[in-house]
């Protein structure tokens, strides 16, 4: 962990102090929780009829409620899936256009990307819900939501992919051009697939953002019944905002944590298949030590390229490192130092 860098292995005095801090902070946290619970109890928030329709399978309304919740989950996921699919397609097209055109030609694309990126996604959803019907496009509200989400996310994804292409070693493109591929072929068959792989974790965390943003559908007057709208309905019916809020948080966190798990899993698979290529690669002991600390820090910094796979140390085997393995390695490390990659791929973006 990173935190261990900040202080030594504690001695007796430091241990005592940190125990005291721990006890005090536990006491403070518990105290706050107890105060909150007491307050809740006073307000009668623990009365079973507020909780049981949502959480107790024996309740008469439980089946109906979860039927509605199921609808909500389905619509949320469907909208997110449709939005990510469309955004990916458009994002690839935008990036390709941008990278293919010359300095002057790409200007309109750059301007459009910047303008859309600077707009709140909620504004885009709101107006896609207003403008489309005004133009006589008779799509239902589900697709209005999807289009709003797509307008914003396609340029975000375009930027992610562009960062991915930029992070590739220059040799990849040069090699493509050298064997006689055109610029477009190089881009589509050599650079893009690698950029896509490189940025897969960032793309999946963008999916998390999209899942969260589907809850903005409420802004469309008769929007699709995604999770938040279902929550509103439940709140109106049972009059239990706290319990509904808890239910919504549980559902969203579960969905998104599962998605993040998927991202980590995919990422590990990718780095495994990559290291298979270079499995003969051996590095001397010093380098292993360096590399592991660097890796720990990198994953902590929110960067997605956790190729924390340890290479078995075999002293003196340095000479066996083939130069061909270098691109693979640097392609894997979009560290926090890469400013451009940072800005667009940081999973720490609050979305929207």
């Amino acid at each position, binding site marked *: 962990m990173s935190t261990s860098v900040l202080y030594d292995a504690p001695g007796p005095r430091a241990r005592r102090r940190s125990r005291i*801090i721990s006890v005090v902070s536990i006491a403070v946290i518990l105290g706050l929780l107890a105060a909150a619970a007491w307050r809740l109890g006073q307000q009668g928030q623990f009365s079973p009829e507020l909780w049981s329709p949502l959480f107790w399978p024996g309740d008469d309304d439980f089946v109906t409620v979860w039927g509605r919740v199921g609808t909500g989950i389905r619509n949320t996921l469907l909208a997110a899936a449709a939005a990510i699919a469309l955004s990916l397609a458009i994002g690839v097209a935008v990036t390709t256009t941008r990278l293919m055109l010359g300095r002057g030609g790409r200007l309109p694309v750059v301007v459009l990307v910047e303008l859309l990126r600077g707009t709140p996604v909620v504004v885009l959803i709101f107006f896609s819900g207003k403008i489309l019907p005004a133009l006589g496009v008779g799509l239902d509200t589900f697709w209005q939501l999807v289009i709003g989400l797509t307008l914003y996310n396609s340029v975000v994804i375009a930027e992610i992919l562009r960062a991915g292409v930029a992070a590739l070693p220059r040799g990849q493109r040069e090699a493509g051009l050298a064997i006689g591929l055109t610029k477009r072929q190089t881009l589509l068959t050599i650079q893009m697939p690698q950029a896509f792989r490189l940025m897969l974790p960032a793309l999946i965390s963008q999916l998390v953002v999209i899942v969260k943003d589907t809850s903005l559908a409420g802004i469309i007057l008769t929007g699709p019944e995604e999770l938040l709208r279902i929550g509103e309905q439940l709140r109106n019916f049972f009059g239990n905002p706290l319990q509904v809020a808890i239910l919504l948080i549980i559902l969203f966190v579960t969905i998104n944590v599962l998605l993040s798990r998927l991202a980590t899993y995919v990422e590990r698979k990718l780095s495994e298949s990559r290291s298979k290529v270079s499995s003969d690669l051996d590095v001397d002991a010093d380098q292993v030590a360096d590399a592991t600390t660097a890796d720990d820090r990198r994953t902590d910094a929110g960067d997605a390229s956790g190729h924390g796979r340890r290479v078995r140390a075999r002293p003196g085997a340095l000479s066996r490192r083939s130069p061909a393995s270098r691109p693979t390695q640097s392609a894997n490390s979009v560290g926090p130092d890469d400013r451009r990659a940072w800005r667009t791929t940081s999973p720490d973006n609050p979305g929207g």
Partner: protein
Amino acid sequence: MSVLVDNIDLFWEGFLRSLEIIVFALVGSLVLGTVLAMMRVSPAPPLQRFGSLYVALVRNSPLTVMLFFTAFVLPALGFNAEFFWLGVLGLSLYTAGFVCEAIRSGINAVPAGQAEAARSIGLTFGQSLGQVIMPQAFRSVVPPLGSVIIAMQKNSAILGVFGVGGDLLSVGNRLISAQGFAVSVVFLGVWVGYLAITLPTGALLGLLERKVAIVR
């Protein structure tokens, strides 16, 4: 187009209202986020756990749920405040989770040798954090923190529709639904309004980033 010209003062009011929300939420989220980041790197495990639990919850649920919480749950619990402040509170609580992560990533981006050097010359935890790590961390934190701030500015639009009212998007909404103006023109006004906030911020942050960047 005359809609824009005739209602320019309405748009201007909405713009100012949005700025107001943004400024309060900026202060709130920076303070809360820094406190959370301190908790997460502190030597006390309970504080670390609390910090990471908070961040995990906030980052994985939508802002709307947080607003649902501050706007409906808090009043139901007898915590009454003006709706504006409930909204700002929600936005601050939400953004704080991301600010925390941005700052923490900055702390982690400081090379380990710096902390080791600070410790080896006998600085305490507080001293090494305050005089060696933090000054460097803040510099590398500018890009990620910047994108968090820009995202927060955009998220402020959600407050308006959630009932805070009076901000740019709700002005647009009123012009369309109550007075039946052409949607696309109103959209243009609202769009330009938000761009007038986000684009200059982006440019400023870019300048700042170049100014404080350290080459490692």
